[in-house]
């Protein structure tokens, strides 16, 4: 059973890098995923500061493979508003190609934008939108 985990983190000054949304399938080993996401944040920050004054376009929002471990691959994506999306997938899942990961991040970004547009959602809250959940579920089913 392939494992995958998706996480959204904001860059708010109150609670920086506190995940707004984290979901993994299957749900055991969730703590391990939390830990991996947390350690990968350092790599994300490093890449962001390395980008510096470069022109930010779609391709540079996608950070690519952050680091591979023996079991998992971690991918990152950051928006102009410094919201980070992190995805962890099984290393054995070689069928996933780069542009598939890119399109998954684009879908995540679009759904995140829809969540932000909900007037009842306050930025910084945990994401509890059903539409977002459904989108992540369908994405995870596609991957596994």
């Amino acid at each position: 059973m392939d494992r995958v985990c998706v996480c959204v983190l904001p860059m708010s000054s109150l609670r920086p890098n506190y995940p707004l949304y984290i979901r993994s399938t299957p749900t055991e080993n969730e703590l391990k995923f939390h830990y991996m996401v947390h350690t990968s944040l350092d790599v994300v920050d490093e890449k962001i500061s390395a980008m510096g004054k470069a022109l930010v376009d779609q391709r540079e929002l996608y950070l690519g493979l952050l680091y591979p471990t023996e079991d998992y691959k971690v991918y990152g994506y950051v928006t102009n508003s410094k919201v980070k999306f992190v995805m962890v997938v099984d290393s054995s899942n070689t069928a996933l190609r780069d542009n598939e990961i890119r399109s998954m991040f684009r879908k995540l970004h679009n759904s995140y934008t829809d969540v932000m547009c909900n007037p009842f959602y306050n930025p910084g809250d945990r994401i509890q939108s059903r539409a977002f959940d459904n989108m992540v579920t369908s994405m995870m089913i596609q991957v596994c």
Partner: protein
Amino acid sequence: MSRQANRGTESKKMSSELFTLTYGALVTQLCKDYENDEDVNKQLDRMGYNIGVRLIEDFLARSNVGRCHDFRETADVIAKVAFKMYLGITPSITNWSPAGDEFSLILENNPLVDFVELPDNHSSLIYSNLLCGVLRGALEMVQMAVEAKFVQDTLKGDGVTEIRMRFLRRIEDNLPAGEE
């Protein structure tokens, strides 16, 4: 005269996102101010009424429709002309009562509620209640007292949004009703 010509020829395009977000901000601010869904619904209806009594003049100037002879004509004009002009959608008209004084407007998509998900603590909030007020206010200015209410709402899980309109009576005196 020039105002009429202006209105007929140019229709300013505006982003619907800004409109949806503005309405959303309005509703959430009302929720914070009143803390009680019923009060918010009443306020939205009252605000809609105030918009409706003014909007009807703009509508009549722009659309050049003549007097409606019966309620069915009114329903057609509301769905095919008014909704199209102001919200860009054309609801369908169904469920006429046998007496011909009640009908339903079915909206498949409602631009006011793009991206909106009602949280659980606002389950009795009628989010688009402004529309009911607008319909009520506008029709009152053309001497028709009606009642408009939502019977189905996509925000609450129904497949479509349905507004039930009921004709109450013709208003005989020409004094405009005061704002409530």
